């Protein structure tokens, strides 16, 4: 496509006097001075003025400079970029859900509350938990909510000295960040050479100041933490709770449940495991589940089913508090329930195993050219420590950028921090063998190219709409609005 024609910003397309939307006129009177002048902005906002066709072309053309799951394979480790089914969108668009105001009386939103209840029940069954809240807006928000629930639990017992949380060194960076926001001090626990949590080191750290241990299972290396029953016992014996980061829940579908592993509190990323679209970074949803005995600490409001089969929203005095304006990203919840129904118990059970199969197949077929630091069966993802042949200086970043030239999104790179050249691949279950074989061929060709023609790999990407944007200049003197950009240009 012709980027020169379509690369302007919306502000550069603006022409005074154009309108893209007609506002209804209800012919109701309004005095000119209905608000005093000192309360008015008194100057133009300077919003763009465009007609509808111009606007639609502008954004349509912008979209063609984007890559989504519908464009191609996204082997992005720990992000579970599975296919987003279209029926989910149609169910969420129904006006009878989309037009509901959050302050409507319960009697007028019974179906919406029932839907919330149905999804929380399904997630409880899948997670092995007693109850879920759908109120948190994202995975990180779920972590924060879960940690606050844990603090509310300890506080309710008068156990106020538990202000630290243990997190494995392989954890997602969000875990320590969420802990810090929740007012908890972070203690890092190391891993065994096989990538799982060092149980002896963990036992040493557990004392009566520990509020929780946060883990993900399988962990960020894609390895199942097989010592989890022992860990759960140690944690519980020390009076702490065990938190499950649901970022890696996908391979556990139909395979194992966090509740059965001994976890007390967990969150789920609906935009990962339950196929709701990532939307270029959001909106997602991060429902939080708790085991029996912790339900009263869930955030307000909760949705409760009454004996007569009706539903109502309730605030609970023992709750950790309110975490969102109302019931979370409700339209995302509709999509997730639609997915669960479409997959069914059988489809969900197959999904976990096929996600594991796809990952292992790719790993086995690439490990002669890419360095596999930890052998063995992986779960939904695995990590290479860069190329085996490092003699030409081609890095993980170079390989990632070269993949873009071949129509693939890059894997997750330089995470986890346990290796210098981490390259983390998660294929998900929705990729066919044809796509996966093609991806493997491309990865193999890049490895060979890295040895024979390293400069081509190092200077990648070559076929993308832009190439090598200057990150340093962007961070040195940040330009975050068009107005700043114009000032700098003039």
């Amino acid at each position, binding site marked *: 496509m012709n980027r020169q024609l379509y690369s302007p910003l919306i502000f550069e397309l603006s022409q005074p006097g154009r309108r893209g939307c007609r506002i209804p006129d209800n012919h109701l009177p309004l005095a000119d001075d209905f608000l005093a002048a000192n309360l008015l902005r008194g100057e133009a906002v300077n919003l763009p003025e465009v007609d509808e066709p111009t606007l639609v072309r502008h954004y349509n053309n912008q979209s063609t400079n984007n890559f989504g799951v519908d464009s191609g394979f996204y082997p992005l480790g720990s992000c579970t970029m599975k296919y987003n089914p279209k029926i989910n969108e149609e169910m969420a668009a129904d006006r009878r859900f989309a037009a509901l105001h959050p302050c409507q009386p319960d009697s007028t939103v019974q179906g919406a509350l029932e839907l919330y209840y149905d999804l929380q029940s399904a997630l409880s069954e899948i997670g092995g938990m007693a109850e879920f809240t759908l109120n948190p807006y994202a995975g990180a928000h779920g972590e924060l909510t879960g940690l606050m629930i844990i603090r509310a639990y300890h506080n309710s017992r008068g156990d106020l000295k538990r202000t630290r949380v243990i997190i494995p060194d392989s954890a997602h960076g969000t875990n320590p960040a969420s802990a810090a926001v929740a007012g908890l001090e972070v203690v890092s626990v190391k891993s065994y050479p096989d990538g799982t949590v060092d149980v002896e080191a963990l036992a040493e750290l557990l004392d009566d100041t520990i509020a929780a241990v946060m883990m993900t299972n399988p962990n960020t290396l894609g390895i199942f933490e097989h010592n989890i029953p022992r860990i759960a016992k140690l944690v519980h014996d020390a009076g702490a709770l065990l938190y499950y980061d649901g970022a890696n829940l996908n391979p556990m579908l139909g395979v194992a449940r966090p509740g059965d592993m001994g976890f007390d509190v967990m969150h789920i990323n609906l935009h990962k495991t339950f196929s709701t679209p990532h939307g270029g970074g959001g909106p997602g949803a991060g429902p939080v589940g708790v085991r029996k005995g912790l339900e009263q600490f869930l955030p307000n409001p909760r949705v409760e089913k009454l004996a007569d089969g009706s539903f109502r929203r309730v605030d609970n005095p023992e709750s950790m508090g309110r975490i969102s304006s109302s019931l979370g990203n409700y339209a995302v919840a509709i999509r997730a329930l639609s997915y669960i129904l479409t997959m069914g118990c059988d489809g969900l059970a197959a999904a976990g195993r096929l996600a594991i199969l796809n990952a292992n197949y790719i790993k086995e077929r690439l490990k002669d050219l890419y360095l596999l630091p930890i052998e063995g069966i992986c779960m939904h993802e695995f990590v290479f420590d860069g190329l085996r042949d490092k003699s030409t200086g081609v890095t993980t970043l170079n390989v990632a950028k070269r993949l873009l030239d071949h129509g693939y999104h890059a894997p997750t790179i*330089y995470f986890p921090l346990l290796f210098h050249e981490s390259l983390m691949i998660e294929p998900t279950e929705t990729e066919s063998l044809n796509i996966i074989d093609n991806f493997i061929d491309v990865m193999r060709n890049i490895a060979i190219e890295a040895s024979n023609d390293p400069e081509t790999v190092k200077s990648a990407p070559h076929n993308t709409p832009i190439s090598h944007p200057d*990150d*340093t200049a962007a*961070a*040195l003197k940040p330009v975050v609005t068009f107005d700043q950009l114009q000032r700098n240009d003039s």
Partner: protein
Amino acid sequence: MEKIYYTPTHEYLRVVENDEAYVGITDYAQHALGNVVYVDMPEVGDEFSEGDDFGAIESVKAASDLIIPASGEVIEVNEALTDNPRLINENAMEAWIIKIKLTDPAELDSLMDLDAYNQYVESEQ
């Protein structure tokens, strides 16, 4: 008489006179960080104890806390870094971040000298 001390977290402390000293990051540290894009600096008059964070330094893809090698009060901050943090990449030893008045010069004894620091860096690699 100038004497330079080093920390395991890759700060240096260069004593000038009257218990005054410049604090910055070592050449090894600037190299590890890459292009520095921002230095978060304290204000003149702030007091820190040995081991406190006194600020942070950011490159495009990394960030690191700045740890004060010895206790002291900030008497000057290097304003030139506000406009051009890359001075640190150009010459880390010249591009000091803060100047402090030491409150307990005896603390310097526990820091490394250049030989010890070089050995330390080698052992880290």
